[in-house]
Every structure is written in structure tokens, then in C-alpha cells.
């Protein structure tokens, strides 16, 4: 397969996953803002979202350094093309990547990408007062689910499928780490103490925003605790959004590529290192190191992994 085609598929995977994360982050913010008061002395929840999304510098340039408002964050994270990770940028980039490799997509996959784009253009023309944030978030998640479904249902499970999934799971690991990090920004000092009502509500909001609220109950019983939730989102092998699950999936697709091409790439070694660390570290280690420090390290290692996939396959080594 053409290296450029592989690269485009990889980025379609990343952008579609990222658009979903942005919707989920916005949902976290929305739910948290419905609480009467958040922990005193801590940062505003909307601001924390922008920080967690990794785009606070751009946001500050555009909206100034005053209080962060919901409407501005919505604009920035959903509609703003100046923000490379906004939902509109993600969906347009995914479609542009898809358009560049139309021959590598099934018609159903293209249809899903293109319909999302056309509907988005409609949304842009709709007055903002008629668009409620929860609906926008639901719409975005639906597009991403639709595309993933069409991919699973119609695409050949060949190397192209692997490159798409590598993009999607590398992105997902990154994104779960970022969402978990939002918690850090809001309730910095209370990681290892069980908080009051507000605190618990915020932790459970994380689960809801990742659509794994019920899954958590199935795995851990009904009592939330920050420890359990952190464990669930980092170390649970069965939770489809945990860091370990994402890394395992990346491993699966790297192994499939190694088998198909008859040789291992340097990316496999990078991944092995991450997997070893995830399986030997315990929650106590994480809390001791500091959740934020742990997540930052994961995000960096994950980025290195993405780079090594690109170096091995996507740039067309001669």
C-alpha cells in the first residue's frame, strides 16, 4: 500500500477519535458547570477543559486572559478553525484525508465522512441560539460511531485497516489521559482523599463523559472512589477507553502488520516498553508519583510511539 495512503488512514483514525474526545471534554465541562459550586480556590472548570485539550495558548490569544466563559470555550472547541483540534477542524481534516485516499475507503466509509461534513456545514449556518451543547456533543459522538461502524462492517481487514486503527488507538490513549488530567486541574490536592458530594459527582462525570458509567458498576460495584475510577481508566484491560486497553490494541495492530510484512518495526519496541510499564505499575505508584506527572509521561511516551509508527511505515523509507 502507498505510504501516503497509510498515512492518510492513520490520520483519519486520529482525527475521528479526537473529534469524539473534544465532544466528551465539552460534555464534562457542561455537566460540571451544572454543579452549584466547584471546589473553592481551584480553577474554573471551563478553563481546565481548554488546558486539558492542550490548546490554552491559542485560546488565550483569541479570547484574552480574563475569566473563561462557556460560550467562548464552545466556540473554540467546536467551531473554530484556528484551533487545529476543534471538532470542526478534526472532521474537516478527516474528510480531507479521506478525500485524498478515496480509493482506499469503502463507499460506506466515505459516505459517513462526507455526510458528517455536509451536516456540519448545515450546523455552521444554524444560529447558535438554536444549538444546545449536549446535542452538539451527541451529534459528534454519533458521527464518530457511524464511521467506526462502517469501517468495521465494510473495510477489508488488511494493512489499511491496521493503519486506521493504529491512529485511532494511539489517539484514544492520549485522549483518555487528557480527560483524566482535567480532574487534576480542578481538584489538585485531593487525588487520594475521598471527597464530598461535589467531588464524587465530578469523578462520576468523568465516567459518564466516557460513556463507561455502567461499565464501571459492572466491574467495581456501586461505590465510586477516585482510586477505583483512576484504576479503571488506566489499568483495566476490559474498559475500552483505558490506557492499557488502548496500548494493547496498538500492540495487536502492530503485530498484525509485522506478520503481514514479515518484519518487526522499531515501533514494536517502543510499545513493549509502554506495556511493561503499565503492567508493572500499581495505582499506589501512580499516586505517589502524582497523577499529573504519570499522565504527562504517558502522553509523551505515546507521542514517541506515534512518531515511530510514522517513521517505520508512513514516510516511505526507500
Amino acid at each position, binding site marked *: 500500500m*502507498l505510504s501516503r495512503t*497509510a498515512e492518510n488512514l492513520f490520520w483519519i483514525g486520529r482525527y475521528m477519535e479526537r473529534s469524539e474526545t473534544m465532544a466528551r471534554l465539552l460534555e464534562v465541562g457542561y455537566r460540571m458547570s451544572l454543579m452549584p459550586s466547584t471546589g473553592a480556590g481551584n480553577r474554573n472548570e471551563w478553563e481546565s477543559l481548554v488546558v486539558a485539550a492542550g490548546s490554552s495558548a491559542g485560546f488565550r490569544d483569541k479570547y484574552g486572559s480574563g475569566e473563561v466563559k462557556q460560550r467562548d470555550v464552545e466556540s473554540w472547541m467546536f467551531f473554530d478553525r484556528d484551533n487545529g483540534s476543534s471538532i470542526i477542524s478534526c472532521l474537516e481534516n478527516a474528510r480531507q484525508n479521506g*478525500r485524498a485516499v*478515496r*480509493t482506499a475507503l469503502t463507499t460506506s466509509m466515505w*459516505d459517513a465522512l462526507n455526510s458528517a461534513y455536509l451536516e456540519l456545514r448545515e450546523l455552521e449556518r444554524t444560529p447558535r441560539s438554536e444549538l444546545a451543547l449536549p446535542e452538539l456533543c451527541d451529534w459528534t459522538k454519533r458521527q464518530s460511531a457511524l464511521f467506526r461502524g462502517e469501517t468495521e462492517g465494510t473495510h477489508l481487514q488488511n494493512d489499511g485497516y491496521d493503519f486506521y486503527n493504529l491512529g485511532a488507538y494511539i489517539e484514544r490513549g492520549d485522549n483518555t489521559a487528557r480527560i483524566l488530567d482535567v480532574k487534576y486541574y480542578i481538584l489538585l490536592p485531593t487525588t487520594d482523599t475521598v471527597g464530598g458530594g461535589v467531588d464524587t459527582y465530578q469523578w462520576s462525570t468523568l465516567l459518564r463523559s466516557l460513556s463507561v458509567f455502567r461499565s464501571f458498576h459492572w466491574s467495581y460495584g456501586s461505590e465510586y472512589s477516585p482510586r477505583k475510577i483512576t484504576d479503571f481508566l488506566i489499568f483495566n484491560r476490559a474498559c475500552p477507553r483505558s490506557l492499557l486497553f488502548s496500548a494493547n490494541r496498538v500492540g495487536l495492530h502492530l503485530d498484525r502488520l509485522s506478520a503481514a510484512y514479515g518484519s518487526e518495526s522499531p515501533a514494536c519496541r517502543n510499545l513493549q516498553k509502554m506495556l511493561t510499564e503499565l503492567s508493572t505499575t500499581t495505582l499506589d505508584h501512580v499516586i505517589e508519583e502524582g497523577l499529573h506527572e504519570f499522565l504527562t509521561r504517558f502522553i509523551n511516551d505515546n507521542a514517541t510511539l506515534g512518531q515511530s509508527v510514522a517513521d517505520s511505515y508512513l514516510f516511505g*523509507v*526507500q
Partner: protein
Amino acid sequence: MYDGDAIRPAYEKLDQWVKNTPPEVLLQKKKEAEALFRRIGITFAVYGEGGDTERLIPFDMMPRVFTEPEWRKLERGVKQRARALNAFLHDVYHRGEIIRAGIIPADLVYRNEAYENAVVGIDPPAGVYSHIVGIDLVRTGPGEFFVLEDNCRTPSGVSYMLENREIMMRMFPELFRTARIAPVDNYPNLLRRTLASVAPRKTEGDPVSVLLSPGSFNSAYYEHSFLADQMGIELVEGQDLFVKGDFVYMRTTQGPQKVDVIYRRIDDSFIDPLCFRPDSMLGVPGLMNVYRSGGVAIASAPGAGVADDKAVYIYVPEMIRFYLGEQPILNNVQTYKCADPDDCKYVLENLKDLVVKEVHGSGGYGMLVGPRSTAEEVSNYADRIRAKPEEFIAQPTLALSTCPTFVDEGIAPRHVDLRPYCLVGKEVHLAPGGLTRVALTEGSLVVNSSQGGGVKDTWVLAD
């Protein structure tokens, strides 16, 4: 559609169908068709304007119909012309017999912008230069066709021939059950075989063909991806290809893979920055060296454009007599060369009745349609001709064929032309259909999509 008051037999079934279908159903179908085009993403880009960069070409649901005997004549004529044009190309890059024989002026060929010195003396496989020839035609009466222009480089629009048919079949299955319409869906298959048939002699095993596109921002990108998809070959851009030793390779996730035939949809001047425009980002450095040494085939061959120049057009009937020893089956439109003082005088005196075109222009831009222009437009254009007469040619306006077309007021006649696609490899093929373009403005003769033209499905009825 009508011959006097009588309906031409080819259109009888269609006429019945229109009469039996309520107008609101037709309108509904028209909306459905547009939604389908948009969803599939069959769009073209318009350069130099803001707003929506991906536009739909207006699709007209009334097909254009040919009877089989009529089509057979047209087919022979198009194939004849395609063979003659290829013979001409081979000749002008070798001994130049037609010039020595005094039939075509040397300057017109050798000083032509499209003439490539870089390919003189090269023998492309099967001696073919133009592998896909698009001939733009108009019908003026029963069995009577005039050629407006030849396209020997990379004629576009064939995806519309295929997609228009697809959409028509989806929307009006009942029409296809009652009329026997020759299928066109074999075209991609024929194109793939044509490309494979011109693979270089050095090829080992099955030839690997690719379609070289300038990329997704090009106005015909949809067509590039569509054709690559239908043929099952890779759609590549310049950055995907590189030259190593005597061959061209594409970059793949498993390392380099050799390429034997390049169906290129980029202009000559962008193919190889080492040979032509050094600022080209679209081409492949060193490609021309590989081509010259017979390591890769390029379709159409660099330099093929010299055959479809508007000033060379005038000599195509002579080419047919000279190379094939046959009488031309399709007519040329009487053409006045403003470079010739007598012709120029005639043109300036009769501007009101003529269509004037720029010799190197395309896309329907910069032309003057005398009968439909104001006195001021005509006089301004006359000044341009006087300033640089060699850049213009003029033709009489023909009694162009019209075809029933859906417009706001209902069904009305509109002017149409036709571009059939002739494939030239070891064999010559013509798909039974083509791209019918229609001028949607009443009375207009300009069918180009960039100038408000639309497209129709083209039917050849089996006997």
C-alpha cells in the same frame, strides 16, 4: 428530439414516459439526483472564486439518445480521427513526412508551445502517443456530425459518462427495462487493458499501472479517484513516486514497488521538474530520463498536445487522407485563421455571425459568440484581434442540435454537444456513450461547466 412536428423515433419511448409521469414526480426525482451527486461527492472545483470550492455540475435527467446506425457512423469517424492523430504525432516526432510533403506548415508544428523537443525520436510502445482521445462533436442533421475540437492530452469528464448512467439507472429503472440501452460500464476495464497493452518491453510479469494526479485540490480530482478505483490501480501523486536507476518506483509501506505505466492527469510541463518546469511540485524528478530509455510508459505521451492545438485542427482532414488514405467521416467546422490576412479581413467584416476563439484557450473562456454579443463587445473584441491576429481563429455558428432539457418552465430545447472517449492501445475502442454537455441558458451555445453548462446521460439504443 423532434423532426419538424414528428418525434424522432429514438425519442418515442422517452416522450411517452415524460407524458405519463406527473411533473411533481419529475421534480422530486431531480432533487434526489442532486442529493445523490452531493453525497457521493461528484463535484468539480472552480478556480479563482470564493465561496463553495466544491460545486456540482447541474445534471439534466432527460437523456440524449442515439440510434445504433447513427452511432456506428459516429464510431467509425471517431476511431478514424484518433488513428490519424496518433499517426501525426508519431510522424512529427520522427521524420516529419507531412511537413516535407508541404501539407502542414513547419512553424505550426515545431514552434508550437505544445511541441516537446525532449521526446523527438523516442518510440513509445505500440507507437501510441494519445491513448485517450476525446473528440468534441455536434450533430447538425441526421447522421451529420461536425468536430469542434480534439483533446489528445488528458480529456476529462468520462466519470460523468459513468456516474450519470449509474444515477439514471438508480432513479429510472423502468426506462431501462423498456428501452435497450447499450451499457458503458465496461469503460474502466477497457482503459485498464489499454494501459497494460502499452507497457514497456522491459516489463516483467503483469504490468503495474498507476494514475498520477495533481492531488485532491485539483478540479478533476473526483474523476481521478473514481477511475483509479474502478480500474483497481493506485492513485498516486508526484511525491509518491521516485526514480532510481532505470526505473520509477512508488513508496509503499513495504518499501519501493516498480511502476510500468503512468496514466498521468497532470500537464506536460509539470511531469518532471528536471526536464520541464523546475518549480513543479507535482511531478517526479528524473521521470523523463526513464521514459526516454524505455523504463516506463506515460499515457498520454509528453508532447501529445501538439495534435489538439486549435490551429492544427484545421489540418486533421488532410491528416486522415495523408496517413490513412481514407476520406474523413466526420466534418471539420469551416475555420478561419486570423493569422492569414484574407481570413482575418473576412472575420473582422463578419464578426456578428462568427464564433471567435483564442488558439490556446480552453474551457470556453475568452471566446466571442458574435450573434449573442452587443455591438460594443464585438467592437472591443475586434480590437483584440487586430492587435494579435495570430492568436485567434473563427468559425461560423452551426445550426446546433438541441435536446429536450428540464428547465424552470418545464421541458424545453437546449443546445448540446458530445464528447465520446476513444481508447487507443494495441487495439482501438470506443465506449457506446459519452459526455453530453448542455447549455442551460436559453439560446446559449456555450456548454462548458465553468460557464453554466450541465450534463446529461447519453444513450445508444440497440436495434
